[in-house]
């Protein structure tokens, strides 16, 4: 959601990505909350917001940038899951705590102080006139536990680590969870890779199987949408996309807080690693792969859920990089590029060689990596 907001600012005003990012990172957290309400209202089913909430929304700083009705204008929960596995939220929690409790990290610049204000409200539930997304309450106080619950229900996955102080995580583990997701998902990645390698194969043995791709994608769509009936988990997904989008944007470039932390780097994973070293909490060793696939995984999973592949002869949507001959000019590209990135980085993050698998992957492994 945050990255999409930055993109809408770039398109609307013509500024550089850095300027748009600085505009968002320096925002009043109340404006961010109001914009989230607008994004939610553009997607959610009636009834929409009440008159009071609507009146407040109209006063926000980003009211001109409301996305059109249609697919949710925020990243899929899979995006939040892989990013949270880098441990970025827990590392930023320590950064905020250090800055709030002393001067061990130095004196933050004015832009960094605005970032700390907003981070404390957006990520860690500091009081804000409207609670972000009603995703936490006295009943479920810890936003990380809420996200863990959502990851478990939709993806059948838990994070690869415990709490900030290495205690086992405590959250409500629902019984209705998609525990078969990972097995089917990796099976689909393997089949899509076979198809990618055979796109230009017109003479040799062709191991691609459009029918199997279609069937696995359809089954994945069934199990994912079974957890999303009547927009279940949508609000939690948006809250997660807000939190992890904020964290990702923070380390996407050498932002003021990154500079203040003396963690300038050439990639998001490098910056996070350096920040983690400063606050004594190491980032996940596979952070580079996790950052690299996050947005593409979002597109991949949204495509599955959208039900675009309704027959075997449409399986090419997953593995072609351009529309087949005969498509109307200007048609959007299929997701072959994104699929390739997800396959490569998922294999790197999990240590499974999805490209050379000789037999179906085991389906009883639930975690992305072993929890410590």
């Amino acid at each position, binding site marked *: 959601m945050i990255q999409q907001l930055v993109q809408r600012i*770039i398109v609307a005003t013509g500024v550089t990505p850095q*300027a748009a990012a600085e505009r968002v990172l320096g925002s009043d957290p109340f404006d961010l909350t109001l914009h989230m309400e607008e994004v939610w209202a553009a997607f959610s089913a009636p009834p929409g917001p009440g008159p009071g909430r609507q009146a407040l929304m109209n006063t926000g700083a980003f009211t001109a940038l409301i996305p059109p009705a249609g697919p949710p204008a925020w990243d899929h929960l899979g995006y939040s899951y892989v990013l949270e596995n880098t441990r970025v939220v827990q590392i930023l929690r320590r950064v905020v705590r250090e800055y709030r409790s002393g001067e061990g990290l130095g004196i933050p610049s004015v832009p960094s102080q605005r970032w700390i204000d907003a981070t404390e409200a957006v990520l860690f539930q500091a009081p804000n006139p409207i609670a972000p997304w009603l995703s936490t309450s006295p009943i479920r106080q810890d936003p990380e536990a809420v996200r863990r619950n959502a990851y478990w229900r939709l993806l059948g996955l838990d994070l690869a680590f415990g709490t900030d102080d290495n205690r086992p995580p405590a959250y409500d583990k629902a019984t209705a969870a998609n525990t078969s997701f990972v097995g089917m998902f990796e099976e689909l990645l393997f089949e899509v890779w076979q198809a990618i390698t055979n796109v230009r194969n017109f003479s040799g043995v062709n191991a*691609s199987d459009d029918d199997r791709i279609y069937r696995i994608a359809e089954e994945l769509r069934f199990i994912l949408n079974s957890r999303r009936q009547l927009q279940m988990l949508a609000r939690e997904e948006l809250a997660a996309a807000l939190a992890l989008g904020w964290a990702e944007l923070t380390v996407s470039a050498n932002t003021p807080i990154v500079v203040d932390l003396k963690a300038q780097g050439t990639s998001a994973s490098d910056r996070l690693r350096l920040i983690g070293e400063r606050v004594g909490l190491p980032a996940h060793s596979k952070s580079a792969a996790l950052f690299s696939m996050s*947005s593409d995984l979002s597109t991949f999973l*949204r495509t599955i859920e959208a039900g675009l592949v309704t027959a075997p002869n449409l*399986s090419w949507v997953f593995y072609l990089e351009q*529309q087949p001959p005969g498509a109307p000019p200007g048609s959007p590209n299929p997701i072959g590029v994104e699929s390739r990135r997800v396959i490569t980085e998922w294999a790197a993050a999990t240590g499974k060689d999805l490209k050379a698998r000789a037999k179906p992957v085991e389906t009883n492994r639930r975690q992305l990596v072993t929890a410590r």
Partner: protein
Amino acid sequence: MTDGEDNDIAKLLQQLTEQNSIITELRQQYAASSERADMLNQFVMRVAGASSVEEVLSKGFKSLSAQLEPLRDLTPRRTLLSYEALKLLGDLRKSLDRPDWSNGRAFTDDDLDALSPDAPIEEKGDAL
């Protein structure tokens, strides 16, 4: 022998010698011609041989192609997305559009000053 007879013999010898040299020259020309004829013969044979291989290969491929014709049904059949599906794919991509951060330069004062942190964003172009 008389002087006249000696002269006749000398002439005959000279004629014989000239004929010998002509015969030798003709033999050399014949040998050269034979050599060229052999080369041409070999060349013609090579060309004829190549044509045969080509013909055999051509016939072989045609035969193979005919045998594999039924397998054409097993190649992926790709149909185009409907208008509604194309629109959905386009909307989906647009809803997830994001900036490119491959240029990881540091923020400058110009970036910080480009947009006032408290002012509402005014839409100037086709934002959505």
